[in-house]
């Protein structure tokens, strides 16, 4: 048996390099990941806890940040909906601790829905809408980015302060030209 062991070792050592070659770590391939850098004509979304992508819906989780020019939105869950494939963008829904800033304006809500087809933003749940012209609080506030007019839908309306430029047209409707609010179409 003394000669058998070396023979077995020789045979096994012949077989082992095959496995070793099989398990060799792959080198870093030099693949150029394309993509445009975030310019002024792009809306940038970053998140910390990953995202799910399906046909017609993209969901971002954890410390989501949306940057669009001078507008910044922070939330915990952001969902982007597409009507058909990726031809255009339909609705963007921001949920949980939504915080929007633009120039001197600020909006806080539990949920914000932006409809790209009619450019109406709907803020719901503990809404505070603060601009240099006025500070509003309510449960539901809708704001049209095209006409710069909004409406407080809920019964509880708290107009904290008003300044020059803000108009209140009764029936909870208001008009506030948000400073620095650029046209959505470029």
């Amino acid at each position, binding site marked *: *048996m003394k000669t058998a062991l070396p023979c077995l070792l020789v*045979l096994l050592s012949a077989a082992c390099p095959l496995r070793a070659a099989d398990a060799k770590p792959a080198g870093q391939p030099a693949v150029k990941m394309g993509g445009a850098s975030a310019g002024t004509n*792009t809306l940038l979304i970053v998140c910390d806890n990953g995202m799910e*992508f399906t046909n017609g819906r993209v969901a*971002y989780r954890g410390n989501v940040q949306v940057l669009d020019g001078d507008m910044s939105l922070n939330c915990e869950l952001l969902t982007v909906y597409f009507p058909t494939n990726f031809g255009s*963008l339909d609705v963007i829904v921001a949920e949980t601790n939504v915080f929007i800033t633009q120039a001197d304006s600020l909006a806080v809500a539990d949920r914000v829905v932006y409809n790209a087809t009619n450019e109406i933003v709907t803020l719901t749940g503990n809404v505070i809408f603060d601009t240099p012209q006025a500070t509003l609080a309510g449960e539901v506030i809708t704001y049209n980015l095209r006409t710069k007019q909004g409406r407080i839908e809920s019964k509880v309306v708290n107009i904290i302060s008003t300044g020059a430029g803000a108009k209140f047209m009764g029936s909870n409707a208001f008009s506030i030209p948000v400073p620095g609010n650029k046209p959505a179409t470029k």
Partner: protein
Amino acid sequence: MRVRPSFSSRGWRWPLFLCLVVAVICVCLPLRAQLKQMPALKDFKIVDYFSREEMQRGQTNQVKNLFTGAEAQQRPGGLVLVRQMRIDNFRPDGGTNFIVRMPECIFDYVDRTAQSTGRIEVASGDRQFLISGREGFSCRLTNTLIILSNRVRTEIHHNLISLAKP
């Protein structure tokens, strides 16, 4: 008086050793042959077609997904290590819906899934929508579900938003 057979005699050792050697050769040689049969596949293409249920009326395009890769190596469990993989997903009208690019991934041919701890880039056909992740992903192409881990960056071109406006 019975004589017990002696197993310690030299006559038993060599047949036993030879049997052992033959057994080892029988195990190792097929393994070696099997590995030799699976060389790295270069510049491969796999086409995935729309199923009969998915086909729409008057649809001429039948290609749903096109998988291309620079190199593929067989891995245990029916998995394939693919380098520079690209998945083109097509709409029923033939236009490109989205493109997925991965420098490296483990691809399950049967389940049509791809996984990696590395980078991924998903772009719409017109590149108006671009998602990139660097910390792992999982793709299931049968129902188009892509999950990106940890930090993810997305760029949406304003044209995509303005296209929704009437």
